[in-house]
């Protein structure tokens, strides 16, 4: 089992281009759909936790899934697995970086990969949206966060996403204080 965790996360690490959000798509495919290690709700929770704690989202997810499966050794195996491929690749690249980027077909392949990364990230967001409870306050929070994040990107504002998240958490609290607990709110997995 430890070896399976290690190898599975090594595979996820090897094929994750473009950072943590792209990795979510891979983790969902392998850990939720194929292996049933965690549920979709777990994944949403860990994404939220990963966003509000320091460190790479991918590391947070790997540690979470590994711990769920096999406790501390599992967390260690999954985390080491997810960083090993990029470690080896970057270490090799660091030995001959300039020449690597000059290879024409490598550069061309990356132009294609960047397009796919965008599609995968949108896909993750769409699926998370389908599965989240959709009452008015949440839709409003989602729309405002979406608009704010786009503006941050377009104008290269130096606003950390952590501020958006803090505001959203406060908004969630405020809504619940005004309206009282929403029915179905107790159904979260521990």
């Amino acid at each position, binding site marked *: 089992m430890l070896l399976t965790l290690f190898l599975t996360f090594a595979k996820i690490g090897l*094929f994750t281009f473009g950072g943590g959000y792209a990795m979510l798509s891979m983790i969902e495919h392998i850990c939720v759909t194929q292996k049933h290690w965690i549920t979709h709700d777990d994944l949403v929770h860990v994404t939220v936790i990963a966003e509000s704690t320091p460190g790479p989202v991918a590391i947070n997810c790997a540690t979470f899934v590994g711990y769920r499966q096999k406790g501390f050794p599992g967390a260690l195996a999954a985390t080491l697995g997810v960083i090993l491929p990029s470690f080896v690749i970057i270490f090799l690249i660091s030995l001959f970086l300039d020449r690597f980027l000059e290879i024409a077909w490598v550069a061309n392949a990356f132009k294609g990969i960047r397009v796919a990364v*965008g599609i995968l990230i949108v896909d993750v967001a769409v699926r998370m949206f389908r599965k989240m409870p959709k009452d008015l306050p949440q839709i409003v929070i989602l729309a405002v966060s979406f608009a704010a994040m786009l503006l941050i990107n377009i104008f290269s504002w130096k606003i950390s996403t*952590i501020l958006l998240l803090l505001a959203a958490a406060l908004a969630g609290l405020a809504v619940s204080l005004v309206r009282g607990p929403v029915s179905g709110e107790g159904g979260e997995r521990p």
Partner: protein
Amino acid sequence: MILFDLLIGFLKVGCFSFGGAYAAIPLIRDVVLSYGWLTDEALTDMIAVSESTPGPIMVNLATYIGSSQAGLPGAVLATLAVVLPAFVIILLIMKAMKTVLKNRYVQAAMRGLTACVVGVILATGCWLLYENGISPMIRENADCRPFILAVVLAAAWFGLRTVPKVKKHISPIGLILVSAVSGIVIYSI
């Protein structure tokens, strides 16, 4: 002592990098430039490489800088240092999760956070598609190849996902491989 500096520097990055790699880039730049490990230009190049190689961007940067400063031992140390805080924090949260997650106020905050995370992820994906698919058509000599590639790949991906029997067999790895081959083909001819 360079190894000690790498350890402290990347522990700092690991501890304070909230909100994903892009949010952390100002912090990484701050640490890297203050220790004089890389020039600003070299750092920018390396961010581009980290974006287009597998794995978390922060981990890639740590490995690269560690290796460039102190060879293999530096690479190992910097990589472990940047990962350690996230690892420890998740373990702590998992220990406390059972009780904390049931708390009414935590749940209310989580509902807000979940909506926000979906919005942020959607915006990031849309922005990347714009940057890599649409903006070359406007800026770089009206190059419409990436746009066509984006439309074809998106149609194939979302189309195949609606077919129940095919759905289980298509994976993000497949899409990445197809996109890499497509990139080589359309830009080489």
